[in-house]
């Protein structure tokens, strides 16, 4: 199944989560996602999500020079961003628990 549709609704929570503990810049964020196993998320999705979260005030940015190349635009969570992440995490855990129950009960019925 194409997981990109499923992931699209989770992009906010995924991007906010990987920035929660450490600020990051665009391409680096994508690499963090890759190392977390999210191979289906493209660069454009990450960039688009970053800009949208920035416009809605959930992220702030600052620029830092890098030794090896162009300046990098770092993204950091704002207070509303942290709150948004907390709320979405609660929602996700609620839905996740229900989904687990749903599958477990239906498997029991089948068995």
């Amino acid at each position: 199944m194409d997981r990109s549709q499923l992931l699209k609704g989770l992009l906010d929570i995924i991007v906010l989560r990987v920035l929660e503990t450490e600020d990051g810049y665009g391409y680096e964020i994508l690499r963090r996602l890759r190392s977390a196993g999210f191979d289906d998320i493209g660069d454009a999705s990450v960039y688009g999500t970053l800009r949208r979260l920035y416009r809605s005030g959930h992220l702030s940015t600052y620029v830092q020079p890098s030794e090896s190349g162009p300046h990098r635009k770092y993204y950091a969570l704002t207070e509303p961003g942290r709150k948004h992440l907390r709320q979405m995490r609660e929602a996700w855990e609620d839905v996740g628990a229900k989904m687990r129950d749903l599958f477990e009960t239906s498997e029991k019925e089948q068995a």
Partner: protein
Amino acid sequence: MTDTPQKNADIADYRLAVERHLADLPASIREDLLNGLEEHLAEVAADLEPGVPLSHLLGSPEAYARELRETAEFPRASLADRLRRGVWGMADPSLAWAKRTADKFTGSAGVGEAAEFGRTLRPAWWVLRGLVAAALVTRLFVFGGEAPRRAVLSAGILGFLFVVAIALAFVWLSLRLGIRSRDWGRRGRRLTAAGGIALVAAGVLSFAWIADGFVFRLGPQMGALEAGNETEYVSDVYVYDENGELLTGVYLFDQHGNPLYLGEPWSCDQETANNPFEREGATPDPFAAPPLDEERYGYRYPLCLDAEEPAADASGPPYELDDEHDATESAPEEPTTEAPSEPTGTSPELSETPTG
């Protein structure tokens, strides 16, 4: 990795191609995306071996633009949503307070949270909706606008059973609708709720006459008292003293000193009318009171001065006066040329002397 002219040209080309595919986005979003895009692409390109095009890592500019717009764009209804959120946001503190208070109220009564309690009331609302619908339909289509109470009384037991059957049918339909509407979308449920409220409002308007007797008769009112015959209204008032003499130029007040507007001055014949609205033309009357302000003193009785007096007139007053009943107790009813003993402290001043 250092910048090379070739790499920079590749980035600029890629950005331009993406820009072309984003042309239809709202200007503010498009600019925000494009402003930072070149920096972002440069970060990505820094990872590439020299000579490898960006599209090798990122795919075609067209696909990149498609993915970008899917994630970067707010939902279409964003303006309306944001407005709504803004309004709710402003109302939030008071809404939260209202909810807490309501919860406390229902919670202290032992029925749990207010919202939960509201849900348990839903079937009761469905029953009420059905009953109102039945009442409206019965009144409008079955009895042709006649008040069901009288119509049912005259129709007897069969009519009563008929009305009960209609009520049961509509309550059943309403319950069914309530159960069904739970599966409908938000819009369907809202429409159903609005329809139900409109129906009950129509019912309240249509059956306001039930409350009429309780509510509107409390204050001074216009000729609404029913005479002995249930269907006839009082059109005039005749006051007799203990000798059976008809009193004229009488004003009526209630216990608060407010005028009683009984009768219908406009029902008199033009020529004989002691029309309170045309005092100048009033018949000269030895007991004629000075022109008084109708708003303060009400009508002057009898309204139809020369009209035939009630049939009971020939044999004295239409009722036997109780001797123990001191005439002065009904004093406010006979303000002739003298000031009446005041019914209460708030009584209007009737002691004005006639002018001219």
